[in-house]
């Protein structure tokens, strides 16, 4: 390992001194390290978003409460939504894309390693930019959906919306760059023999997600650009007095926003589709159907956006059309759930923490999906939209779904990433407390919504029958917080003294379990020849229809390892991420800063592009 580590960076420096280690992380282009950076940042932002949620729940614990005022509450729900979506769930998924996709497809890295680093640094600069608004007392307060024309300069004259609007553009850029990178990686870097239909289902769901990322973000980018021009340069896109229709924002936003929902859930579905087969020791039931369902969901995802807008008065024809398309999209989703249960059927189910979280995913996501069908019917949706019923619905999808799925992935792949197994006992405490806390928080919100509690209100009157279940919901939220303490304790304990995992602690089915934990920098000393979706399982056990396990390949020689070429480190991605933040923040400070930052960004882009042009004559590390 020591020789590998030295080899990894292609030079003698670092891994010795503290600053050497820091520098090696700042300049890394290794997909695994970038994955860890994404995961760690995302978890921190998850905690920040969680604290915002806890303060909101405290405010709502009783009627006419005065813990935080109206302005602060509006900031909290705006930042909670924005943080959880863009800074927690998406980057946590990105962490898995980064770390696992190359391992699952048998590649040594992503297609564009430096672009990958660039995505991360742009993400981080956008995330810090957005959250720096708290320091200036200018936290965004327009809602994560930022409906125009409330966000125009007339109704939001302070810089609050600017932080949100510019921060989201930076984050969108990061997501799109990562999206292109993973699209190319998945299309072009699969190991020999891994046809598209032999690709693990997590990779498939990620593949669909990347399409959604690169096709949905342009729509919100345009919406945000129009808003930016309205706020800074006096255009009239969202000015009703000039004949504009503020619904333009809603359409552009939800053309992005609905695919975004699938961007948040599909990776978790992919994780569940890996975890269930491993722990029931059976292949995924109807894998092609699960894959096609994912594709259908992705495709239809672009045709249902207006179901977020049934109350705006689109007219009966549009209401009916979007209602039907929304109901259609429920079919592939339901099919997936039954296929997961079919995977468990007839298996030999080993109850380990990752599986608990995956089972939790199925149980809770089912509920979120079913309440979603209710909103697909516009008349019902008219009563439920903008009430706590919807809050309950999408938390069942995004918390009960995405977060449970992502935690399943964390427990599942932790030994691969860190070489040590997380503690099962603490893991179960985490799971059960989270499950209880989650249901205690969000189940009563269905009821609260049905008896008329609207969303986004910082206070309510005491005589509406909402008091008791709001209190229960608040207690549940704190239970979730406690469950996360168990997770953090688990992580700390495992880092100090966890059992060593070995290559294949779960008796896994896919390629990542065939290599050491943690994997060497080049992942695969020899690129695998893939014959099946569960290739590693077949190597170990044969296909169960008489074919014998494959003979073990010859040991890898030192010469083979020495011949592997890995890309050198690069500091341009980091600098480029910083320059972009300088340019964008200039919009709120001075146009000179925008120009200087813009020229700097262009220059750094040039340097970035030229770094590997003719590497033989360039600075060979």
């Amino acid at each position: 390992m020591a020789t590998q580590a030295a080899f990894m960076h292609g030079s003698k420096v670092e891994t010795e001194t503290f600053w050497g280690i820091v520098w090696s992380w700042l300049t890394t282009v290794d997909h695994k390290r970038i994955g860890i950076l994404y995961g760690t940042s995302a978890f921190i932002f998850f905690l920040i978003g969680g604290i915002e949620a806890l303060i909101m729940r405290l405010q709502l614990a009783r009627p006419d409460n005065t813990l935080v005022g109206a302005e602060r509450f509006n900031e909290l729900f705006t930042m909670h939504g924005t943080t959880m979506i863009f800074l927690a769930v998406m980057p946590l998924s990105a962490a898995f894309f980064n770390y696992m996709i190359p391992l699952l497809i048998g590649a040594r890295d992503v297609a564009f390693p430096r672009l990958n680093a660039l995505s991360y640094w742009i993400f981080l600069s956008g995330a810090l930019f957005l959250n720096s608004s708290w320091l200036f007392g200018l936290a965004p307060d327009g809602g994560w959906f930022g409906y125009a024309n409330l966000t125009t300069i007339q109704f939001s004259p302070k810089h609050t919306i600017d932080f949100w609007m510019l921060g989201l553009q930076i984050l969108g850029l990061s997501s799109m760059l990562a999206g292109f990178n993973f699209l190319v990686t998945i299309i072009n870097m699969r190991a020999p023999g891994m046809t598209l239909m032999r690709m693990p289902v997590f990779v498939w769901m990620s593949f669909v997600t990347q399409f959604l990322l690169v096709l949905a973000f342009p729509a919100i980018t345009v919406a945000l650009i129009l808003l930016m021009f309205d706020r800074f340069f006096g255009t009239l896109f969202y000015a009703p007095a000039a004949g504009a229709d503020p619904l333009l924002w809603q359409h552009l936003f939800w053309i992005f926003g609905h695919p975004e929902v699938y961007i948040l859930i599909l990776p978790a579905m992919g994780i569940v589709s890996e975890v269930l087969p491993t722990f029931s020791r059976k292949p995924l039931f109807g894998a092609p159907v699960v894959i096609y369902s994912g594709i259908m969901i992705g495709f239809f995802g672009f045709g249902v956006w207006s179901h977020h807008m049934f109350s705006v008065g689109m007219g009966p024809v549009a209401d009916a059309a979007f209602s039907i398309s929304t109901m259609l999209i429920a079919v592939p989703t339901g099919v997936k759930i039954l296929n997961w249960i079919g995977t468990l059927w007839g298996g030999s189910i080993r109850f380990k923490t990752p599986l608990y979280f995956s089972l939790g995913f199925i149980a809770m996501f089912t509920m979120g999906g079913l309440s979603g069908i209710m909103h697909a019917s516009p008349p019902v949706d008219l009563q439920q939209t903008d009430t706590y019923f919807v809050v309950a619905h999408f938390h069942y999808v995004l918390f009960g779904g995405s977060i449970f799925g992502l935690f399943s992935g964390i427990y599942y792949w932790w030994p691969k990433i860190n070489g040590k197994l997380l503690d099962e006992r603490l893991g179960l405490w985490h799971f059960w407390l989270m499950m209880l806390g989650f249901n205690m928080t969000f189940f009563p919100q269905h009821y609260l919504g049905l008896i008329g509690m609207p969303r986004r209100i910082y206070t309510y009157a005491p005589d509406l029958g909402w008091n008791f279940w709001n209190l229960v919901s608040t207690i549940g939220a704190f239970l979730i917080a406690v469950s996360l303490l168990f997770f953090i304790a688990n992580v700390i304990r495992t880092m100090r003294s966890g059992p060593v995992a070995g290559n294949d602690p779960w008796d896994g089915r896919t390629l990542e379990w065939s290599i050491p934990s943690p994997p060497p920098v080049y992942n695969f000393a020899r690129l695998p020849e893939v014959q099946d979706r569960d290739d590693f399982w077949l190597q170990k056990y044969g296909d169960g229809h008489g074919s014998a396990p494959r003979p073990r390949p010859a040991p890898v020689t030192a010469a083979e390892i020495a011949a592997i070429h890995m890309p050198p480190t690069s500091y341009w991605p980091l600098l480029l991420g910083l320059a972009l933040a300088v340019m964008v923040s200039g919009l709120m400070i001075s146009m000179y800063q925008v120009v200087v930052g813009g020229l700097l960004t262009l220059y750094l882009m040039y340097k970035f592009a030229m770094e590997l042009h003719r590497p033989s004559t360039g600075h060979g590390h």
Partner: protein
Amino acid sequence: MIQPPATTPRPRRRFDWSLACLLGAVLMLACSCSAVGWNWDTPMSTVMPKSDFGKMTHEIFMLISWWTLGIFIVVEVGLAYVCWRFRDRAGAPIPKQVHGHTVLEVGWTIAFAVILLVFAIPTIRVIFKTQEAPAATALRVEVFGKQWWWEFRYPQFKITTANELHLPVGQTATFLLNGPDVIHSFWMPQLGGKRDVVPHRINHITLTPEVPGDYPGQCAEYCGVSHANMRFRVIVHEPADFEKWVKAQQAPPVESTDALAQQGKTIFSQSTCVGCHTITGVSAGHIGPDLTHFASRKRFAGSLMESTPDNIAKWVENPDHMKPGALMPNLGMTGEQGKALAAYLLSLK
């Protein structure tokens, strides 16, 4: 690099009693909480429809609810059963590697599609039914959602009022929704809804209240600082009572001869109040609520507070303190002036 299949017998897992006890305790707590009851008949309940619109909505809601509840139970019980039945047993062989079942896949895809068809047909019927053009006899009410209060105008009666909507029972009413500032949403949970108030676009919603009563309503689209405080009330009258209300609103306001009230009137007419508020015969401002019959309304300021002398005095002293972000400026009124204004306003029956 490939390891041989694990053949060592797995140790029997220790049962975690502390976790089980905790789970049991919380579960019992949850059950007892549920025993407190789920009271559906609350002031803003969406499941106690009091109009034709609400009832049509509710029927579909109940249809989908029962079906989805059924599916939910089947899936969850099925999941639990599968987990129990196929749990790993010591020394069990590798299970049969089943890859799928085409007939099953086709079967449940069709089943889902059929169930959704059951939802889609009544849905589409109700969509078109509730969005028909209203009859000419329908009562027209113009609804203006403003940051953060509601204005209601009855063009055929030439009445303008605020935060209190009066409707006759059994008569179809069409609401024309409009607003001068940002997007709001007009929602009367017990009567049905909601429909967004989008600036410079006329939206409409038509319904027939069927039960007299006093129902709360609220803005349902986030509209800025005091979104939570943008409430209103709907009073559904018997037709005769509605007539009476219309007559009273059309009449000029009755002024009190009380000295304090007269003092209040002087303050009102000599201050900037007149720039924003209308009181027939006194002022003609259009930015704030019409105050002509202020005392006929039980609540004020986005239906936030009861119209008591104390509340009104506090409000005019510092509106922002009572309703964060209130657009009515702080006019620097003293406590005395506030009391006088309250007396005057409460005399405007």
